[in-house]
């Protein structure tokens, strides 16, 4: 008996000994905790109300469901048996322990640009979180996507691991911002349009992407549908508090703000803003707005005045801290109206941050506005007060309504 226990103990020592690289220093662990905040690991790997990092809710990808695994140091069901090299490899190359190919829903194409020191800090932190026994079956994709080896081809087509290279011609803040946006912050995972294989479309960085029936808007310096009209402070305020003088976050961005960006250092948010302001737009000029005499515009205006203007104002000005400004708002002018349709159908509530605890909400109008009503009112909003964007069709509303029911 005694001998058996001793052997088991030795085996365990071998497994846990693999963690030798991890530091117990407070500074390292704290730095790693901050890296986990920057990378928003908990957004996917923590179930709402669940133990931190013990595995998350299924992610619905265009290819099927993936469940974010348990990344606590539990040796059986988490990453307790991983070495630092396994961990680094996963982030840098998308290849986990034992050569297991990760799917890029785990944004390793972004994390691959992270510096080794930051990855080592992150590793130090993850060694110290509470180990939780929770067995997760990550891969719930249908055949053929369920074959992890298919990622070899995907990586060959879409992924060239490369650490971030600073641009000496730019400021330190710009470079820090570029590092965060491209790396840990993985902004492009949502905000860059995707190809058929789900990879970033080359040359369209941060020009707006679709996911989970939301549209993540254009973050380039485009003055019409991007962030060109937002000041650095506007961007910082949005990321820090969930709102700025124009806009109030909704959907997945609202979650990213509560769990991640609201906890970033101010200097890092300033750096992100400096970098985003400098990203070139696609150069296309703003379209001409629809004529006020267009039947959809006339119908939409009547609905707007009746249902929307009490909060958003008859001039689309909204109300600071409570109701989003619609006039000249980049998200209103997005080419893709998915998020706008969704918010009208389902409503949206602002997130609570320490700076902005109010959590004002827009109610759902899906139950008492028809597809044509929603389309018309959005067409009106998208072509009034300086806005100009393609009209919304009843078909788009109908399709999204159906998608949201699934």
């Amino acid at each position: 008996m005694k001998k058996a226990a001793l052997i088991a103990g030795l085996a365990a020592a071998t497994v846990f000994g693999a963690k030798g690289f991890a530091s117990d220093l407070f500074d390292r662990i704290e730095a790693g905790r901050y890296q986990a905040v920057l990378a928003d690991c908990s957004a996917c790997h923590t179930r709402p109300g669940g133990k931190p990092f013990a595995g998350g809710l299924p992610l619905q990808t265009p290819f099927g469901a993936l469940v974010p695994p348990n990344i606590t140091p539990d040796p059986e069901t988490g990453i307790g048996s991983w070495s630092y090299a396994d961990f680094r490899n996963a982030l840098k190359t998308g290849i986990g322990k034992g050569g297991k190919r990760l799917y890029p829903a785990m944004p390793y194409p972004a994390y691959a640009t992270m510096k080794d020191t930051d990855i080592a800090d992150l590793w130090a932190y993850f060694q110290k979180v509470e180990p939780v026994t929770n067995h997760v079956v990550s891969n719930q994709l249908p055949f053929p996507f369920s074959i992890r080896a298919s990622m070899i081809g995907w990586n060959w087509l879409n992924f060239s691991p490369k650490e971030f290279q600073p641009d000496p011609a730019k400021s330190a803040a710009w470079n820090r911002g570029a590092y965060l946006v491209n790396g840990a912050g993985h902004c492009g995972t949502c905000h860059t349009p995707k190809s058929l294989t789900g990879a970033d479309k080359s040359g369209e960085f941060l020009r707006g992407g679709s996911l989970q029936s939301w549209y993540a808007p254009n973050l380039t310096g485009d003055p019409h549908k991007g962030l060109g009209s937002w000041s650095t402070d506007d961007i910082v305020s949005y990321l820090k508090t969930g709102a700025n003088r124009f806009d109030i976050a909704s959907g997945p961005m609202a979650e990213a703000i509560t769990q991640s960006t609201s906890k970033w250092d101010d200097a890092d948010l300033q750096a992100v803003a400096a970098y985003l302001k400098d990203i070139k737009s696609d150069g296309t000029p703003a379209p001409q707005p629809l004529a006020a005499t267009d039947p959809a515009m006339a119908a939409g205006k009547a609905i707007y005045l009746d249902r929307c203007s009490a909060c958003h104002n008859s001039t689309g000005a909204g109300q600071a801290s409570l109701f989003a400004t619609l006039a000249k708002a980049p998200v209103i002018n997005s080419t893709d109206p998915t998020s706008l349709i969704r918010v009208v159908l389902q409503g949206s509530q602002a997130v609570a941050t320490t700076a902005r605890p109010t959590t004002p909400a827009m109610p759902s109008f899906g139950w008492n506005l028809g597809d044509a009503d929603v389309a018309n009112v959005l067409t009106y909003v998208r072509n009034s007060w300086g806005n100009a964007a393609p009209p919304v069709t009843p078909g788009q509303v109908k399709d999204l309504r159906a998608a949201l029911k699934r």
Partner: protein
Amino acid sequence: MARKLPRKDVVIVGLGWTGSILAHELTDAGLDVVAIERGPWRDTATDFNVAYAPDELRYAVRKDLFLQPAQEAMTMRNDVSQTALPMRDYGSFLPGTGVGGAGTHWNGHTWRFFPSDFALKTHLTERYGAQRIADLQLQDWGVSYDEMESAFDRFEYLCGISGKAGNLNGAIQQGGNPFEGPRKRDYPLPPMQMTYAPTLFAEAARSKGLHPFPTPSANLSGAYVNPLGIAMGQCTACGFCERFGCANYSKSSAHTTVLPVLMRKSNFEARTECEVLKINLAADGKTATGVTYIDVNGETFEQPADLVLLNAYGLFNVRLMLLSGIGKPYDPASGEGVVGRNYCYQTNASTQVFFEGKHMNPFIAAGALGQSLDDYNGDAFDHGPLDFVGGAGINCIPTNGRPIQYRPVPPGTPRWGSAWKKATKQYYNNTLIFSSQGSSYATRGNYLDLDPTYKDRFGRPLLRVTFDFPDNDIRMSNWVSDRMKEIADALGGKQAVVGKQRKGWNSVPYQSTHNTGGAIMGTDPKTSAVNRHLQAWDVPNVFVIGASAFPQNAGKNPTGPVGALAYWAADAIRNHYLKNPGKLVEA
């Protein structure tokens, strides 16, 4: 058998205005607080949805947000010679229920009482002699206006009250209420943009030498961020305040000023749809051990706590004290006892002036958007040659032009048919209404107790209300009606109808949800249920907060003083009680 739950530092009964403020203050002090609310959870986004909030049939006619008699009824009578009968429907007043309480569906008039109101008995005795008030049971509050000033100020800044100071540190301000007590600083927001009818009213009043001013309003004149960091918006004057929750984040209530911050605190918990059955006392009867409550599934729990705060609507604070055996019940025959004593109400009368060719546009309205005057309120005028004490504010506050219930027509108009339709069309836009809101002074015979016959769904006796308008108050109100007639005459118009209050309080038609007293504050445990800090004299770890503490009611809406009393009690608990739990005042 009640299931006993883990102990809390504080249990709060009722999560309305005062419950939310006390919970916020005491969680800030580091205490672990649970609030038990018998109504449902409600918040702006979910429950006051702008797409259906202005539903007059649902909220104003069918009274969707109010307490239903099936949950708790009351019995009522005018005097002890009658047998009280239970209400089948609430009428004269409409108690709230649910998170936010009656502060959800109020209009938003936010007053400070006059300095003389707080020392009423002393003040009137000194000015007119004891004989003048011999028929009344007036009492001082035990706290002065000056002591309450900062509490008023904090409540007004919590709410973002829109108004114009009339007295800044003793200096009378043009355009404000010249009769108000001195305030240290102006209101947080300027007055609301005035509508037409109150503008006409103010012009007429000024022509008579009176001093109208914009009513202090909890409907906000502009965007505001309160000291807790919670944002509110400018009122859109939709005219759906009283009986409605505000969909626009522009009427102050617990939802729009406290709860977003309170609900984020880890040391606070709200349990809704849980009704407190009684406060539990230790064997000595001098210490509360917590409360017993029943949840929506009918399961009974005991919640032990070091401190029990009664923050229900005033009438229910009184009933819970009576049901729990806290304080000696009041007996009108002997005039002894304290719980149920000095129940007061409000003495109102209304005036309609019918015009031709006007455009009053009554649909542009808000609950507190109007003009008021205090020339005939409280003791702002000399009662020497008169045969009453007290007074009334006169208010022109057109709260709504709602399609179902706002149909003013001159007397003599048929109640239905084509003549009625013609008249409603003619007068909808041509009627100016103003009213007097008068003081209600305590008498020996007006009181609250437990009904000997009728019981609630849990088998507990109902509250019995014994009330009629005292002769003094009728004389006061009728005298003020004559003053209203003078203003109506100055307004011109085709016809003026001036109402006069009469004896024989009728519990059926709606009058006012300003029920006060029953657990009044004071300096003598023989004549008050709670001391000047709202601490129960007999059970010092119970505080009773609300309009139940008013020794008598002034000619003003009570929410301002209720909010101020919440801060006043919170200060007493934070600054004195917690440091040395026990009686804050030795009798």
